[in-house]
């Protein structure tokens, strides 16, 4: 293979077209991310109109904040490694074998992603709390934080790497095996190098999610555990110290940027072009395959399933401790008792509406950004890649407050409802890019060139070949975008908006009132959120790319 061609794919859009494809995501992120973040941090760093370096020096030299920074990094590295360790075997099983319930299970892995931390927290405490059924009390420890991060981020690895893995022709592995390589050797010398772009992509996402972890650290960790994200929030809302918060936000961005840059340096950005496998995977036939599939699936069921089962079970325990549907009935009757509660239908419709818009925006911008990444020069691509990822490493407080100080011009968007799906999209775009761009880079050009030879215009060839081949990866990204929007709470709560409660906000309001009915109803609402998300992801997954016969 010509080495140059593995590094830079030729753009089918011509120079001008490529520039335009870079421009749209750049403008979007420039206006809705860079501009607000710069505006708010500039404001925070110059409290009296001038920059006061003393605050900066105080923050950098504070021993407790250094401790927070060290812990933030340490737990994020551990969480990423653990999630990879647990997620890769499951990615393999989902990519390489078919078994009954495979699609349903794969959709279900995204369910934890949307659940509010407090609700998950109660399930965790039932299992590993002071009176936990396991007999082990992990309350307030690093272990429970790590377990929760794996619980939340598992799907990123399983689905992100899995979608890519499925695309790798098993014939490559079979060839190595038939030449006498052991399973392990085949995995390390053939499969792993091929998977590297996808593993690199997804682990960066897991790392950023853990690095900016907020609810998990606040609720499951004790008072001695704090991340930079938590500290920014604390400085803002408890002390009203925007100067310190902004300093921390800048340091967090620099840290995230440096880590991503280092990461990009070690990772070969462009994927190796591979023949795309479009055949569905076989059932496990050998005894060892069956055993492996069984072990991995039971592990997944234990990790993701147990807390979810606890929640579903809890939702059927009525306020008077008998078993029944009272919690679901209360969902409907509580809003009549007090306006503090939200009608479930209203919350569901709001959530679905925001999620559809957020997904559309994230897919549009994300696919363009992926195309831009695949077809621009390497150095440009690397910095662009970093730029697209940054919103995920930025604190929700910074983005929310940034909208408020920046978006008054040219149209006053500061209190517009549209900021909610846009904030959700900012978090979701990196997911679309990370799932779509490795696949996009791996499309073999001779396919498109063949189409061109047959008379197709380059863009038409791209549309019919590249986009269709990577459509499944884009759908994986779309499912993530949808789930992110459905479960998003943090960024939404820092946006000033007309009252339009989403499901997570409805749950938050239920959990803000004493009484056995509101708590039960909150659990019931969480189960509804799980169900709706599971179904939506299943539907998105089912929008299959054209199958084997097409190409």
């Amino acid at each position, binding site marked *: 293979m010509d080495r140059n061609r593995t590094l830079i794919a030729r753009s089918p859009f011509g120079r001008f077209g490529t520039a335009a494809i870079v421009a749209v995501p750049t403008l979007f992120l420039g206006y809705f991310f860079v501009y607000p973040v710069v505006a708010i941090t500039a404001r925070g760093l110059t409290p009296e109109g001038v920059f006061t370096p003393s605050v900066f020096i105080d923050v950098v030299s504070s021993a407790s904040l250094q401790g927070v920074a060290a812990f933030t990094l340490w737990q994020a590295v551990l969480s990423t490694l653990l999630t990879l360790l647990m997620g890769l075997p499951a990615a393999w099983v989902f990519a390489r074998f078919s078994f009954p319930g495979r699609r349903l299970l794969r959709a279900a892995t995204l369910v934890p992603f949307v659940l509010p931390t407090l609700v998950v927290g109660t399930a965790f405490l039932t299992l590993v709390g002071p009176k936990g059924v396991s007999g082990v009390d992990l309350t307030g420890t690093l272990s429970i934080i790590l377990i929760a991060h794996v619980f939340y981020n598992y799907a990123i690895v399983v689905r992100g790497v899995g979608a890519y893995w499925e695309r790798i022709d098993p014939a490559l592995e079979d060839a190595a095996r038939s030449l006498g390589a052991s399973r392990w050797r085949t995995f390390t010398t053939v499969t792993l190098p091929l998977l590297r772009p996808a593993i690199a992509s997804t682990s960066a996402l897991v790392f950023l999610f853990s690095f900016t972890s907020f609810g998990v650290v606040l609720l499951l960790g004790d008072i001695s555990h704090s991340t930079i994200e938590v500290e920014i929030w604390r400085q803002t809302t408890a002390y009203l110290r925007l100067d310190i918060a902004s300093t921390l936000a800048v340091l967090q961005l620099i840290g995230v940027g440096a880590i991503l840059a280092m990461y990009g340096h070690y990772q070969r950005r462009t994927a190796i072009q591979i023949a795309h496998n479009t055949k569905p995977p076989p059932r496990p036939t050998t005894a060892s395959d069956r055993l492996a599939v069984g072990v991995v699936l039971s592990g997944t069921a234990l990790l993701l399933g147990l807390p979810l089962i606890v929640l579903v079970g809890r939702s059927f325990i009525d306020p008077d401790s008998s078993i029944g549907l009272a919690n679901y009935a209360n969902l409907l009757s509580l809003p009549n008792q007090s306006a503090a509660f939200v009608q479930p239908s209203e919350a569901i419709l709001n959530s679905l509406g925001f999620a559809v818009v957020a997904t559309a925006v994230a897919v549009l911008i994300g696919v363009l950004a992926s195309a831009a990444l695949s077809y621009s020069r390497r150095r440009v691509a690397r910095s662009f890649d970093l730029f697209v990822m940054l919103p995920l490493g930025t604190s929700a407080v910074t983005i929310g407050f940034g909208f408020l100080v920046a978006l008054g011009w040219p149209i006053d968007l500061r209190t517009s409802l549209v900021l909610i799906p846009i904030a959700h999209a900012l978090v979701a775009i990196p997911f679309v890019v990370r799932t779509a761009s490795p696949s996009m880079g791996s499309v073999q050009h001779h396919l498109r060139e063949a189409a061109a030879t047959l008379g197709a215009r380059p863009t038409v060839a791209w549309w019919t070949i590249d986009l269709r081949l990577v459509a499944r990866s884009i759908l994986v990204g779309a499912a993530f975008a949808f789930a992110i929007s459905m479960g998003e709470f943090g960024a939404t709560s820092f946006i*000033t908006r007309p009252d339009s409660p989403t499901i997570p906000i409805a749950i938050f309001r239920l959990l803000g009132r004493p009484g056995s009915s509101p708590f039960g109803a909150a659990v019931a609402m969480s189960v509804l959120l799980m169900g709706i998300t599971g179904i939506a992801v299943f539907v998105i997954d089912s929008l299959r790319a054209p199958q084997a016969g097409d190409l």
Partner: protein
Amino acid sequence: MNAWTIRFAFGFLAIVSLAAGCSASPDENKVVLLTHESFALSEGTLDEFTQQTGIEITVQVSGDAGTMVNQAILTKDNPIADVLYGVDNTFLSRALDADIFAPYTATGIEDVNPLLRIDGEAVTPIDFGDVCVNYDIEALTMLDTPPPTSLEDLVDPLYKDLLVVEDPATSSPGLAFLMATIATYPDGAEYDWKSYWRDLFDNGTVVATDWSEAYYTRFTRSGGSQPLVVSYASSPSAEVLFGDLTEAPTGVMANGCFKQIEYVGVLRGTERESNAQQLIDFLLSVPVQEDIPLNMFVYPANSTATLPQVFADHTTFPDAVVMEPGTIEANRERWIKEWTEIARS
């Protein structure tokens, strides 16, 4: 390709113009109310105002009270609303220092308990709540332990491992309870609040991040291990109301409570000052004030408003500590930091 560019440019423009359609345009017959996530009034209550005055109310929701005050300060040169509802006494001074309110004396202010009012006419008290230690009656009976009656009791070995409090850095009832202890054991006293908290922690006090975590995971009522929790004096009424009960399952320790007072004010720089003033009068009027308790679980500031029966039956009115907003502002950061150091050691 050009066609692509154009298509996407149109898409982008469509989004922006859609957004513009949703955003506020200056209009004589409207008024914008900025409030926090816990704001709620019965359906139709605000429509009453529109019927009386012809002015439409738009409610803008922010996050918690701290976030909201920050946002109001950040936008003070170009306010995003006309009226701010829900700045409380722990954050009030910061808002006053930033000079975000235009002075106004509300019609009906004479019906407000002078204890709730502050000097000057920047803001109007609108509601209040008392943060107190609550106890689970059944759990204490099973332990054969009498309910605690004072802050002093809580450091008694009799109550070892029984109390859960909220972190004052992340929770407003947590901050309120810290201030109740500071008012009782002031800075500079021989036995000050720091000594008190060291004793509390030695006695096994647990810290939760926020009220929901404390009440719904730590409190014995929800299957936790602590029968004493920092909550509100109105919580037993809510337990009755939302548990379909006749007797309150929890009680309130009437000593060591802190009064949280919420205020409304006209935001300086509004182009609809008269509308904003009319809205404040309306919010302080009896119908709205009587609608507040069952929706926000706080008490009306207007003393002529009648309390709902469930509140009248199950609420204790403790002798709560009232602290000067200025004192709070001057010390809040230091108090929380010193508290955090004690809690972490």
